């Protein structure tokens, strides 16, 4: 059974159909890439899955339950964690406290003291070891992204949504980032990643869904889907355009 299934999901903003009848499924353990030109509705799709936005119509089935009308906190508790496209850390809390918030309220809630005990191991995993006491707001942009990921992992999610988490990394950091995501997937966490870095998509994703104008225009292995004529047209324009 699929872990997550979107069925005919739609959401409009005024006259703009940001997500328009979108359907796809993610199998447990899969790393699914969600790609498409800017404005194609990828982030809106993530916001619909996590309850940040409410769908106009359609269903989101997670682990057998329709969560399309659930509140964000109950979706998070059900086992979906996310990072944000524009990085969001709790700036005046310490780095360790940021991670602890994920553990205290996530899919496997624990006591605050226990969450603080778990934080160092997670920080070590994402490359911020020994820095738990520093205020999160002082971190560089890239380290804030790492911290967001640690917070998401602390929640022990079954499904992790990454919104352009690899964007803005230099080549070395990109290598590390890809290895990190691969190790998260190896732990059995299912991942949906919205990403523009195609080398990362090819390295990580067994399957991708390509969106344009709120709709799915192609689906399959990265090589097959990206060479689909509809995808090329969406990115580069039609021949006669």
């Amino acid at each position, binding site marked *: 059974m699929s872990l997550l299934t979107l069925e005919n999901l739609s959401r409009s903003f005024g006259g703009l159909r940001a997500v328009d009848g979108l359907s796809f499924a993610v199998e447990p353990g899969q790393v699914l890439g969600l790609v498409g030109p800017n404005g194609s509705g990828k982030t809106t799709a993530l916001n619909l899955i996590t309850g940040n936005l409410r769908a106009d119509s359609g269903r989101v089935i997670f682990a057998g339950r329709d969560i399309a009308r659930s509140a964000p*906190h109950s979706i*998070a508790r059900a086992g979906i964690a996310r990072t944000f496209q524009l990085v969001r850390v*709790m700036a005046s809390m310490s780095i360790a406290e940021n991670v*602890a918030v994920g553990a205290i*309220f996530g899919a496997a809630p624990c006591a605050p003291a226990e969450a603080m005990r778990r934080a160092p191991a997670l920080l070590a995993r994402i490359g911020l070891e020994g820095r738990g006491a520093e205020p999160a707001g002082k971190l560089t942009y890239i380290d804030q992204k790492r911290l967001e990921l640690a917070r998401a992992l602390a929640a022990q999610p079954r499904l992790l949504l990454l919104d352009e988490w690899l964007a803005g990394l230099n080549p070395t950091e990109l290598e590390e980032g890809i290895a990190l995501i691969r190790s998260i997937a190896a732990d059995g966490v299912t991942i949906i990643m919205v990403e523009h870095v195609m080398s990362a998509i090819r390295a990580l994703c067994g399957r991708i869904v390509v969106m344009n104008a709120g709709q799915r225009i192609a689906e399959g292995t990265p090589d097959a889907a990206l060479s689909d004529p509809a995808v090329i047209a969406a990115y580069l324009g039609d021949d006669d355009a």
Partner: protein
Amino acid sequence: MNSPIFLAAVAAIAGAFALVQPHLGPFWQSLLINILMYTALATAWALFSGPTRYVSLATAAFFGLGAYTMAFLGEAMPLPMVYLSAAVIGAVVAAIVGLSTLRLSGVYFVIFTFGLAELIRQLVTWAEAKFGGTVGRFVFVPVSPTDIYFMLIAACVAVFALGWWVQRSRLGWALRAIGEDETVARHAGIDVTRAKVLLFSLSASVMSVVGCIMAPRWTYIDATIAFNPIISFQVLIMALLGGAARLYGPVLGVVPLAILFELLQANFPNHFSILLGAVFLAVVYLVPRGVAGLLEKRR
């Protein structure tokens, strides 16, 4: 500040207040009652407004509800039941108000809470005139100023203990996360509305009990006394001067300002509001993070 030191300090200060009582003249007892009252109110205010950064001007509303609880029920039931009723009434009103308004943020919330206090004041005035045929009420209960003094000490200890517990609890963490970034909090699994309403109610409950304790001091109350908006403003400015981000912060603002306001009121009764405003401006400009913030920076 770690918890054994904090709790020991609270116990020691409470003990000292209790021990000096027999030696206080009426003036000093009255000043200390004022300080204790504002300590309980400002600390309760900061319980909610500190972590969430939602500035509430509803203190007078809950304080007044407590005072009126005493005026109505003081002679009808045993005193402990009256205080308990005040706690429940404050919590219930706060929960109803919270559910309908905590979606508001920033300046809208401030205005709403101020409006709420005024609305309740007007409603009470209207209801008293219409159904009670009176403007105010006498509060004849066997509660002496000394009783009030000791009850306020207990209230302060209770609010510090409550705050200490909240900070360590999941609720306290939830509130801090909400204050930092509500969207992140929500997506981390925090039921934002529930957390805010719960703490708003707890905080309001304390304020109502304090109003209930204070009511016998006036012997006669009317809506203008019980729901005096100056209470809301003074609590706010005291908590801001002390620093609302720490549990021990507000009290650092209460002590100097309670004394200052006492002096101003005694010497410049006609210009008090103007001077209060000036103090307000000075605090916001000069110590935006409060005395507690200054102390932590120094370290």
